[in-house]
């Protein structure tokens, strides 16, 4: 009981803080310094239609690189943590039969999900969405497969190969930007093309699809690791 009271008082203090933020908050009437720059300069400089993608991939490219590393790290550590666990190796016992609706549904839906995922991260620089969202969709496809058949074994080698290759290429493109273009992760190493076309905005689509693949692979490896710990 005392724990609740203390928790409430502390959160009341924090709430006071947030209240201070909420009450004095005045939404901007027009774009501030950075937003105005991005609005004006994205199209001519980077040739990307989706400004958020331009920011995510190029302007704040290092963040995204860090972010991808976070995911890579989480996947690796999850693999490490659960690998340590599995060394004691429990063979899964008999399984409850999977519903018929799920198996046929997954057989039909999975290709569509994978197709949608690919579309999302390929058109990242044009339409809303991008590498991460596409990767998540790919992972949901794989999750569906796992749900349908828990015993399915995914070859970790393939997943980590995809993951690593994507990561290496991403860093290579970044360095290429440093060597040939203006700076690390600069997308002007490829022609900008015209706004709105598929092959435009320099290296952004390439980077974003690499990210898509990498995120998809990482989610897959995490799901696989978590699945293999299934104690049936």
């Amino acid at each position: 009981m005392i724990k609740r009271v203390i928790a409430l008082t502390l959160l009341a203090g924090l709430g006071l803080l947030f209240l201070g933020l909420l009450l004095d908050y005045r939404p901007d009437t027009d774009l501030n310094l950075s937003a105005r720059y991005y609005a004006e300069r994205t199209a001519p400089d980077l040739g990307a239609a989706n400004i958020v993608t331009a920011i995510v991939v190029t302007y704040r490219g290092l963040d995204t690189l860090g972010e991808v590393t976070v995911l890579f790290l989480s996947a690796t550590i999850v693999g490490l943590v659960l690998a340590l666990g599995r060394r004691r190796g429990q063979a899964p016992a008999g399984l409850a039969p999977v519903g018929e609706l799920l198996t046929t549904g997954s057989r039909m839906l999975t290709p569509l999900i994978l197709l949608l995922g690919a579309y999302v991260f390929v058109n990242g620089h044009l339409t809303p969405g991008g590498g991460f969202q596409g990767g998540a969709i790919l992972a949901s496809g794989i999750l569906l497969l796992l749900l349908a058949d828990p015993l399915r074994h995914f070859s970790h080698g393939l997943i980590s190969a995809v993951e690593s290759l994507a990561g290496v290429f991403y860093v290579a493109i970044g360095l290429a930007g440093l060597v040939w273009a203006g700076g690390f992760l600069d997308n002007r190493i490829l022609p900008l093309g015209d706004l709105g076309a598929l092959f435009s905005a320099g290296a952004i689509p390439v980077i974003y699809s690499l990210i898509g693949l990498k995120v998809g692979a990482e989610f897959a490896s995490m799901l696989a690791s978590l699945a293999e710990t299934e104690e049936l």
Partner: protein
Amino acid sequence: MVDISLIAMATGFVLILIGLYGALTNGNLLRMIVAFTVADAGVNLVLVSVGYMRGRTAPILDSAVPAAEAVARIIDPVPQALVLTAIVIGLGVTALMLAYAYRLYEAKGTLDIAKFSELKW
């Protein structure tokens, strides 16, 4: 009429407080992890609501919003980019906490955080 972003921000803050309250009072590891995800959702909500401007559209340059009018028509794209990263990082930490929870359960056979306090003083 109260601006939509204020409502979103308020709900964000409330979500954060609920999440933290859940994390603080629940002894069970999984409940704590779920509570933290709720808090992360609240944070993301606040992040997104900051950039919103009344009567403006998404920062995508297409037929509806030509490049020339972009400055007057689109909302602030930066929070959108930040929230993307924040979500992914939140996911990464949650995945890690789940893996830890699993190993802790495997080690001690219990999910009560109070049982894992042999490192003290």
